[in-house]
């Protein structure tokens, strides 16, 4: 099967600065992929190269297995801070975007209206974009990116600049779009990534350091621990003394590295049972995506 998008050895070098360094990955049709990394990791440059704005220093981009010179018609792109001609109305802008992206002139106005309704700008479509708030601009940005029904949506930090309400609204739109098209979006907010992602790409200083599904990456970096909270410190101390496994004890809490030989929740619970130690809570903890993020792209 050919991939929707195949990126090979993509590099962008400005002077001696490698903003993107031999990035390779594939995107399958119908999936959502999150490009994750701290500021300055090369997320925007990578997306700009895919959008055709920035010419790569090196590497190739194959769309449906072919290296077409211009794939801009098959792509919808939303920059982090979309800028619009302030004198145009939302409808005029979206219609223009549709025609320039190849929508039939007779269809463009209808498509533009439909798309603006979809992103919730139905009432504001006759207003000039110069009067729009940040949240409205983001939604208009989404509208211009999808009005021509692109096969691949590239979104640069689509919700980072929004307040919690606006963020929820845009996230809901994206989840709906996820059903219809392939999405590659960058973010540094991991909750978003957790919410709609089939594949994660971790960028650090222009290098793709990790690439996989949420599950595989979780498993790799999970570092599971069993955490027990006792009624009192004395009980915690007694448990630590008789435990056959290495434990860490902090006041009433005891944590056990679950990757040790013979450790499992049944064993721990049965030990607690036979010793009849009163507890408040037993839980299996896995690393949050945030901890993984710190480990993969920040540390070292």
């Amino acid at each position, binding site marked *: 099967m050919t991939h929707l998008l195949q990126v090979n050895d993509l590099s962008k070098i400005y002077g001696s600065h490698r903003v993107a360094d031999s990035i390779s990955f594939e995107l399958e049709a119908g999936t959502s992929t999150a490009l994750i990394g701290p500021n300055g990791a090369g997320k*925007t440059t990578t997306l*700009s190269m895919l959008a*055709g*704005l*920035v010419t790569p220093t090196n590497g190739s981009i194959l769309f449906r297995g072919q290296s077409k010179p211009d794939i801009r018609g098959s792509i919808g792109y939303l*920059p982090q801070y979309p800028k619009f001609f302030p*004198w145009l109305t939302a409808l005029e802008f979206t219609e*223009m975007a549709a025609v*320039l*992206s190849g929508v039939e002139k007779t269809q463009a106005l209808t498509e533009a209206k439909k798309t603006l309704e979809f992103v919730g700008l139905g009432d504001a479509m006759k207003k000039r974009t110069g009067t729009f708030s940040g949240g409205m601009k983001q939604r208009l940005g989404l509208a211009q990116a999808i009005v021509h029904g692109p096969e691949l949506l590239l979104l640069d930090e689509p919700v980072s600049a929004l307040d919690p309400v606006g963020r929820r609204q845009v996230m809901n739109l994206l989840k709906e779009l996820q059903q219809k098209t392939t999405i590659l979006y960058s973010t540094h907010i991991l909750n978003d990534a957790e919410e709609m992602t089939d594949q994660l790409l971790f960028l650090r200083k222009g290098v793709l350091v990790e690439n996989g599904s949420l599950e595989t990456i979780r498993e790799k970096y999970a570092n599971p621990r069993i955490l027990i909270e006792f009624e009192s410190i004395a009980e915690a101390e007694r448990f630590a003394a008789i435990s056959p496994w290495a434990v860490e004890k902090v006041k009433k809490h005891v944590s056990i590295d679950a990757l040790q030989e013979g450790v499992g929740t049944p064993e721990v619970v049965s030990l607690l049972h036979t010793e009849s130690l009163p507890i408040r809570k037993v839980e299996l903890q896995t690393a949050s995506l945030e901890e993984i993020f710190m480990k993969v792209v920040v540390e070292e």
Partner: protein
Amino acid sequence: MSSLNTLLRKEWRENIRNFKLYWIPIVFVIFGVLEPITNHFLPEIMKSVGNLPEGADFLWPELRGEDIFVSLMSQYQTIGILVIILAFMGSISGERKSGTATLLYVRPMSFGQYFLSKWISVNAIVLASVWLGFFAAWYYIRILFNSVGAGEVFTFLGTYSLWVVFAVTVVLAFSAWLSTGGAAGLSILVLLVFQIIDGVVGIYWTVTPWKLSTYAASAFGSSADQAAYWMSIGLTAALIILLVLFGMYMAKRNAAKTLV
């Protein structure tokens, strides 16, 4: 083709909504009306306000209507050109700097059509302004001086218009190439400073765009070297085509400089 139409409509809307479609013609027409009036009444004005010593009687040169066309043209050659440069220096560079160009450049549009949409609309506004200005002057010249034949006026306007198109093309090509400030500086050098240089040391060459205004004035009777005139027209037309191609190429090459 439909992209060019769409881009032209965008330019049209822009120039209406930022008032350039109105204020630029008004400015050129005001100059066109003022020129014949001030020239006609200047002797009287000087007489009434100037503290001329008793008995001093200046001999004012006897101006013909044709001379007023030429003196209006020299106004346009300085103030007019400056207005054109300042009004349109950011046509392309400004869209890159503000980032409004980004959402155009990520679409499958041709940079040739993008540049052409600017070139056509700016030329339309500027040529209309220049022509309206001269027409207004023509009307006043007929009242205050003498009537000037249509044949001479249109020959004059035709030749001068080619210089105007050249000036617009220079500004737009530089705007595609450089930042707004750079485009303004270099345009002023090429369109205003070169004019002065050509006026001072230009006797050594005859075929240049900077002499087109002089050749245009020769429509009113003063003789000009016909061969040099037509070669200047050919050279200017060729330079316009080259600058358009250069502008298209630069708009594309600088696309990555748009603010993301």
